[in-house]
């Protein structure tokens, strides 16, 4: 970056501009394990800071990469072409919570769990719950359209974004959407920005839909011999016309990993687990939990555990939330792909993955949101063996092809980032890519915002 650009940023941000190597290193990574050094980091505290940064970027032509908590799995916040990382962590105010009209107005740096807790205090519910909810931010969740465990019943981040304020690639401040239950005026620019991975605009404020907090919930952990049984059970539950608020699957390796870190005793022969949750009115929850227990047993569950109180439920959930980081103990590098297949094809996908693992000689760990057909396929690699890395890359490509062939999608909730850029066209087709690029040019004509993401031709190579 030009010294002139840096000094202009310095005038704007004072000590909220950091250019030391140490700070740059601290903003060079996310949860992918990949690393790209930015030239500088800025900490805006309001929309005007963001706007001025983007205006400067247009003048001096440097990339601006928005970053929430840097917990993404597709590289969305990595500064692959250097430039300025714009960290939203100091824009972390909940502006208001409207308990009559059921919405919250927040800044992008608010941690998702903080919002959930504040809503809960008022008897309200902000459902999106990515596994990272304790640290990931609302802004990051919106940029990637994060999903989570309860998406099977409540949907994903997109379903809760009513309106946005965002700085476009031109430096203009766009207000879009509504603060009402409905709204169909013009194109849905709000949804356009949700999931755009910081390539169209930088969210500076969001109006988020809240719903009444369910009265009760129960969590079940059902243990099976193999993934196929779990997959069958998921479909049987849907057929029984129950909509659990979570249907999470863990395979044997995932279970082993977490078990190595936590004192949980599981019966001999446990090769797959389903974490199920039902919520709603007290009586209904008990009835549905009983029904789920029956269905699980009917499909070969070795054991079904149940918790209805908060600490007991949290214990079961902790198992699930710890998987992703715990996999680091299996191998230092994981290619974490969040494919989605039609729910009815889950069992076929598991069979394919098992065969793939043998054929390509790669270790694959699967877990995730079985109720959505959204499976996290983790291909574990040492990071030091070139042949293994090649086999893993080939395996990933096969997984993606199979997914699309089954009528699925290559990313349910992590986004394209740099990890899936090579496969974008495979799923959306050449015209799809072309239209997306035309839109990009319209929001960000100079390619300032998060360059190198989503589209292959500018993308960094997979590390």
């Amino acid at each position, binding site marked *: 970056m030009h010294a002139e650009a840096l000094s202009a940023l310095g005038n704007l941000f004072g000590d909220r501009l950091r250019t030391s*190597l140490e700070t740059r290193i601290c903003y060079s990574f996310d949860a992918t394990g990949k690393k790209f050094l930015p030239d500088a980091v800025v900490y805006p505290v309001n929309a005007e800071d963001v706007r001025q940064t983007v205006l400067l970027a247009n003048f001096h032509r440097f990339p601006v990469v928005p970053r929430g*908590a840097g917990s993404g799995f597709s590289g969305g916040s990595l500064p692959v072409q250097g430039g300025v990382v714009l960290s939203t962590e100091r824009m972390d105010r909940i502006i208001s919570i409207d308990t009559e009209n059921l919405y919250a107005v927040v800044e992008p740096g608010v*941690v998702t769990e903080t919002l959930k807790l504040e809503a809960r205090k008022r008897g309200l519910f902000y459902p999106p719950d990515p596994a990272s909810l*304790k*640290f990931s931010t609302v802004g990051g969740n919106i940029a990637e359209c994060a999903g989570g465990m309860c998406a099977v019943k409540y949907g994903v981040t997109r379903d809760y974004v009513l309106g946005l304020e965002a700085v476009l690639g031109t430096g203009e401040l766009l207000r879009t959407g509504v603060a009402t239950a409905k709204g169909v005026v013009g194109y849905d620019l709000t949804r356009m920005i949700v999931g755009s991975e910081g390539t169209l605009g930088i969210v500076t404020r969001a109006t988020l839909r809240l719903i009444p907090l369910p009265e009760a919930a129960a969590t079940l952990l059902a243990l099976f011999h193999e993934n196929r049984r779990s997959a069958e059970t998921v479909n049987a539950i849907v057929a029984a016309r129950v909509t659990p608020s979570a249907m999470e699957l863990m395979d044997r390796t995932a279970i082993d990993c977490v078990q190595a870190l936590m004192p949980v005793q599981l019966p001999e022969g446990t090769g797959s687990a389903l974490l199920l949750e039902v919520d709603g009115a007290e009586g209904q929850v008990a009835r549905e939990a009983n029904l789920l227990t029956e269905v699980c047993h009917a499909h070969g569950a070795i054991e079904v555990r149940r918790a209805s109180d908060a600490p007991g439920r949290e214990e079961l959930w902790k198992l699930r939330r710890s998987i992703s*980081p715990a996999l680091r103990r299996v191998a230092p590098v994981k290619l974490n792909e969040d494919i989605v297949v039609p729910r009815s094809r889950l069992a076929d996908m598991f069979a394919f993955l098992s065969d793939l693992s043998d054929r390509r000689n790669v270790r694959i760990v699967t877990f995730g949101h079985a109720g959505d057909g959204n499976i996290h396929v983790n291909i574990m690699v040492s990071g030091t063996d070139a042949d293994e890395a090649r086999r893993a890359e080939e395996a990933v490509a096969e997984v993606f092809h199979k997914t699309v062939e089954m009528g699925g999608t290559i990313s349910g909730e992590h986004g394209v980032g740099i990890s899936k850029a090579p496969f974008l066209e495979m799923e959306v087709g050449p015209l799809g890519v072309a239209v997306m690029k035309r839109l990009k040019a319209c929001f960000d004509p100079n390619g300032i915002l998060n360059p190198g993401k989503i589209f292959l031709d500018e993308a960094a190579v997979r590390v």
Partner: protein
Amino acid sequence: MRDADLKALTGLCAKCGTCRTVCTLYPERKAEIAVARGKIALIDAAMSGEDNDADAVQEALTDCLLCGRCERACPNQVLVEEIVMKGRADLAEEVGIPAWKRVLFGKVMTSPAATGIARKAAAAGQRLLPGKIPTASGLHYRFPDGLGGEGRTVPKLPAKGFLESLGKGEAATGEVMLFVGCVFDHVFPEVGRASYETVKASGRSVAVFRDAACCGLPAMVSGDRRSATECAEANVRRLRAAEPGAIVFPCGSCLLMFKRNVFSLIPKGDPLYDDAVFVANHAVDYASFLLSSGVLDRLPEPSPVEKVGEIGYHDPCHLSGTLGKGPEAREVLSRAVGPAFAEMAGADLCCAYGGTFNMRDYSTSARIGENKVTAAVRGGTKVISTACSGCALQMRDMAARTDPSVRVVHIAELVHQALFRK
């Protein structure tokens, strides 16, 4: 940096970000460099040669309270405390230790005699300081601005330390060894005294460990591996030779040193390793010892001195967090003061003393500490009890700054009061 063990430790960090949720400093800094994930990235960069500015990396590593909250929250159980201390020690070999620390750790704290002389000198010096302010817990001095931070108060140092107050030959030998620690000997001798009397009340013979060096923690966290090792070796050798049945620690930080940290200074294979294991196996926190000794069974009824719910307990990070001894202290309090004890608001939050952190960045340390005391007072606590010398220093200073009517005591003082009240 050269430490090969470090790579294995840092390699487990998945950069997930969980550490951001619990870090004591993060809400103050709101920057990635404050949290474990950032520091680990920096250590990796220093090891790989990507970042050769040892001074700058050391500066970043020093900005940490070592409260260990990240380590306990980490889904991968990354040993952050050990990583940061090792990192500091490795870097210290490149950038050196500041001169004042070198003298303090290397010359003063390794020798009990020198520590005594230093206290006397400091006590004499204090009389020259202006601006005394009265507090409920005796006299505190307020530092003039620019001399160690805005409004810092320090306890008035006693003319006599606890060890000096013992008679000749008193508590010289015994089956139970009491490791008083520098602060409870020289700064708050009443805590040393209360610990001694209450441990003695168990009926077992008690020896006070007289030729103790500093536990070594201050040197260790400052990256001064040599002084820390000197302290640890001297203590381990002397403690082992005394063949105690138990070694009781009124201070959680001293205890952590002998339970855990000592093994990175005296590792497996070291000639003193077996002795260090002996010491670790016999080291016990004050509360656990009291519970096992049965002395509290003799208490007729809880002390009526304080009102219901007025006494709170501040969890020392090392003692309640790392060593998991929170329940024992609470049990002791419940037995000693009954319903006067109640859970304090934010009990398990770090007080932000952090040893030398408090000297390095007093204003941040004070901001976090004041918030802690303010929340406690708002929740109805009037007496803050604790069981760590660093926490005691910090909480007294913070109480003096925010609400001088708040008393800060060691749990041993409350037990003493209950056991020996007239």
